[in-house]
């Protein structure tokens, strides 16, 4: 295989692995503009009822 062919092959290889979804989903971005209040309503609903205990009990051992 010549150097040229090899480069071509590498390029083709790379092109074939090119990501199919190289665009970000803009509609989700628009959702951001939705009222912060709606979001806060939802947070009111899903937030742990006993926040103090929830936070206090979350103790981890160090890692890495």
């Amino acid at each position: 295989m010549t150097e040229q062919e090899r480069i071509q092959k590498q390029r083709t290889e790379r092109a074939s692995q090119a990501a199919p979804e190289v665009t970000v989903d803009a509609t989700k971005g628009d959702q951001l503009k939705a009222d912060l209040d709606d979001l806060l309503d939802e947070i009111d609903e899903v937030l742990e009822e006993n926040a103090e205990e929830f936070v206090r009990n979350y103790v981890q051992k160090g890692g890495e």
Partner: protein
Amino acid sequence: MSVAKVLGIETEYGIAGGPDGDQIVASSIIVNAYAQEGRTRINWDFEGETPDMDARGLPDLTSFAPIVETHLANTVLTNGARLYVDHAHPEYSSPECRTPLEATLYDAAGEEVMRRALMVANEMIETHQAISLYKNNSDGKGNSYGTHENYLVSRDVEFNHVVRAMVPHFVSRQIIVGAGKVGAETEAGLESDPFFQLSSRAEFFEEVVGLETTLKRPIINTRDEPHADAERFRRLHVIIGDANMSQVATFVKLGSTALLLAVLEDSGVGAFPAMPLHPVGAVRGFALDPTLKCAVLCEDNRERTAWDFQDELWRLAHDHVEQHGGDAVATPKEIQLVLTQWREMLDGVRDDPESVADRIDWVAKLRVIRGFQERHALSQGDARLQAIDLQYHDLRPERSLAQRVGLRAMHGDDAVREAVHNPPDSTRAYFRGQCVARYPSEIVAANWDSVVFDLGEGPLQRVPMLDPLRGTRLLTEELLETSATAQALLQALDR
């Protein structure tokens, strides 16, 4: 000359619950649940209409080969990743990927693996012992655990040049890829008593360069374990990142860092901005200032804000791509996406943070923290604000706030589900994952640079994979397709 930026992310997940609240036990349950129980529950209806298909065409909840190295669970997944218990955390180490976008996909697949493990595990144990998982980096009480990036780097680059080139990036990139944190938790952090920090990890860093990862954490980690031919490669092990919930942030974190490493390899350290005189002070100081006004003195006697550093680094990467392309990192199209997102986030965070609240974790988090605080007139130290911080990273769908704040996705759910089972095509992870999927009973061990087979008779046979770019789909698919058994595969490899 830059080498292909093979890359990936390893994430230790925070964990709560489990029998007696023992985190090591809970972590083992999570890993074992995924490895051993998932397969028996193939009828689990996760997403409704789309059954999970793996490479063999079988619907499957999880994919694994139970490879036990110690008494703690340690498995290799069919997507080439490693899932195991590290200290007292379940950890997912993504397979080696060829581009930042691909590595972002396999990071998202890791979240999905953990979500599935969580669901299976919680089916097995008592309700009051239910486990929860968090993709974050600290417990708010001074204990931190890591999200580490890995990049393949040419051995030709002197390590002190890596330090000199990358410290400016690692101290400043948090303004766009920081995950944010309510309050502080280390002695040094508590002295400043901040309401909010841009990065959850910044206050844990105490040194500029070092080998440690758990004590005296360094901005540049010197672990020299390439899992590849050490004559040609190093693996830059980056321990200073936050765990991102935003896929765009993960993508830009990986893309910007990979591009800058390619600049260093191709053009040397000369064009990089000067280091801060006190890098540790810089990373902590930048974290403490959501107004982005904090400036630090640099070795060229100039003062720079984190934004100034990022602006200079973006220009450096941009100009390099104009002149040399970015083939070492990704396709031209993907490189452009790195550069445009990086630029938009940089300008947005300074000029109109609301415009990037769909991409920058700390901005998204701070927005709801402030909103919630105002709505309920809460004081700075209110536990509910810390609960919001914690739940931002919660993997339980019914509790997750990251899923609710409107973050942009880069990969669709279908792609993520596929990546849970199937390896990337473009690195040796393909061969590893395929071997695990095809010959699970003949594999006794697998790691980053080899797969070990036991055919029942004769000695164990190790297949080395020292080059991360060999073992790709292109190079091995035909061999795998024509090898019905592990024995046939090994015979073919011998020829």
